[in-house]
């Protein structure tokens, strides 16, 4: 019996919803949403203390999607968790929808921070963790960054501050799929060696397969044993993971699947 069976089922449902909602909206970001499915599934269905019936519960763990363009994976996960009805997913990016192109904490139950402009969610997560340190509570803050996102200068301001303030209640996960809009990280603006960079900034760095639940959960547990240092989890992933024709293609960063592509993608997910 596969001990991650439940998580896999959730992830598959989330992937289907990502494809369906993007097809319906006609625009959005599949690649970086699909690469983060296992990470969000592990967070919301295994790791974080949240209450979908009480989204603003003040003792909840926090999640910030700093790579805000991956909003579809967050929305699909929140809907799967019961924060709002799944029918809402089909209104993604439409006028009057609660589901904006990038996360809006005022409009969507379960969204802990408005994000979209890269680097800023990471910074806000640092403030959340700092506030929780000040209050000496048990709340943990999780934040998901993209790999291209670390090209933003603010990321390193935050990296410095989180380390300076010894934020061991902050866990960052970097969705390291290696691709950004204009191509590979290496061709656009080299980001490596990221592990060394974050180590040099004073972070506890863990490197994992971002599609392996065992490794993801182990990393979250390991982070809890580290004192006085924030944790950066470099999660190696595949952009577009789970849909054969989207995998490892930067062209699927910000393009919605058409009817035919949607049919093929959903059929692939049926087989899983």
């Amino acid at each position, binding site marked *: 019996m596969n001990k991650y069976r439940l998580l896999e089922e959730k992830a598959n449902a989330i992937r289907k919803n990502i494809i369906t909602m993007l097809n319906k909206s006609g625009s959005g970001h599949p690649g970086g949403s699909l690469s983060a499915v296992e990470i969000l599934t592990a967070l919301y269905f295994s790791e974080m203390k949240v209450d979908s019936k009480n989204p603003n519960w*003040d003792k909840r763990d*926090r999640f910030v999607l700093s790579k805000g363009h991956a909003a579809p994976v967050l929305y699909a996960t929140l809907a799967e968790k019961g924060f709002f009805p799944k029918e809402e997913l089909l209104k993604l990016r439409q006028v009057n929808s609660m589901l904006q192109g990038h996360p*809006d*904490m*005022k409009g969507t139950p379960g969204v*802990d*921070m*408005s*994000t*979209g*402009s890269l*680097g*800023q*969610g*990471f*910074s*806000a*997560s*640092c*403030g*959340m*963790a*700092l*506030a*929780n340190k*000040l*209050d000496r509570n048990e709340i943990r803050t999780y934040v998901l960054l993209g790999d291209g996102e670390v090209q933003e*200068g*603010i990321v390193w*301001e*935050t990296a*410095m*501050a989180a380390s*300076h*303030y010894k934020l061991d209640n902050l866990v960052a996960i970097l969705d390291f799929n290696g691709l950004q809009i204009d191509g590979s990280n290496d061709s656009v603006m080299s980001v490596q060696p990221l592990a060394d960079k974050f180590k040099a900034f004073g972070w506890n760095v863990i490197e994992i397969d971002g599609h392996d639940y065992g490794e993801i959960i182990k990393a979250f547990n390991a982070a809890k044993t580290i004192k006085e240092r924030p944790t950066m989890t470099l999660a190696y992933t595949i952009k577009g993971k789970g849909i054969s024709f989207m995998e490892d293609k930067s062209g699927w960063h910000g393009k919605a699947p058409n009817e035919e592509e949607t049919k093929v993608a959903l059929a692939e997910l049926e087989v899983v």
Partner: protein
Amino acid sequence: MRDMIATRDAYGKALIELGKMNNGIVVLDADLSKSTKTAEFSTAFPKRFFNMGIAEQNMMGVAAGFATAGKIPFVSTFAMFATGRAFEIIRNSIAYPKLNVKICATHAGITVGEDGASHQALEDITCMRAIPNMTVVVPSDAVETTKIIHAVAKLKGPVYVRLGRLAVPVINDNEKYKFELGKGVELIEGNDVTIIATGMMVSEALKASDKLKEQGINAGVVNIHTIKPIDKELIIKKAKETGAMVTVEEHNIIGGLGSAVAEVLIENHPVIMRRIGINDTFGESGKPKDLLEKYKLTANEIVKSTKELIANK
């Protein structure tokens, strides 16, 4: 002779009072705490003071995070770096989610003085005013600063408070002055023209009104401390009563108080008008007093412009 106190000094003291009253107040600074006067708070409440280093963008983002956790962050640095360098974080991470962050920026305007143009924010009101959800306040003196800091702490939502480096005359009476956010203050009644001023230029407007009176011109003076939301009612009332309007600000005439007043007038009750401020140019190094004279931000210049304006009445 009036007392001379910088609004930043009054801010530092008000923060201490607030800190005593409310445990939720936290203060963030970017390595300028001695200049912004948050250093006093850091001594009084070290656990609630966070030096974020020379990294204004992250400071704003961290403040947003604090606010999501129910804290009331007061964030200080120079106006240039708060509203310039960190503009987009203020817009997207603070104002868009309407988070309860108080941006109290010092060293605004040309009276920064010797540091020169790179440090003289002359467009900060314009930038902050253009952001939805943002309240924009400019105290005229130390008394008003204290009242503003207490008022904005009670307001839910983002606020920009524009503070100065230079010691300026105390023009308000602490006992008598009833401050209300969003309400302009009629300091002098006059029926020939209304001078609307903000910040440290209010005291120059008062002096100008005295001088004009000697020349037989009754110039009213209104202090608009809240640039946004602006007191439309009072501005329209004074336009109707006096038929001529002069605005005075230590700020670019593009987008600041003058623009805000003009917007109200043009849609409600157009009257002849003159905007006094920095005429869309950068500043330079110099003693604040010399700069105010060179850039025509003095009572004498207000008198001159006012007379020219009402000659056309």
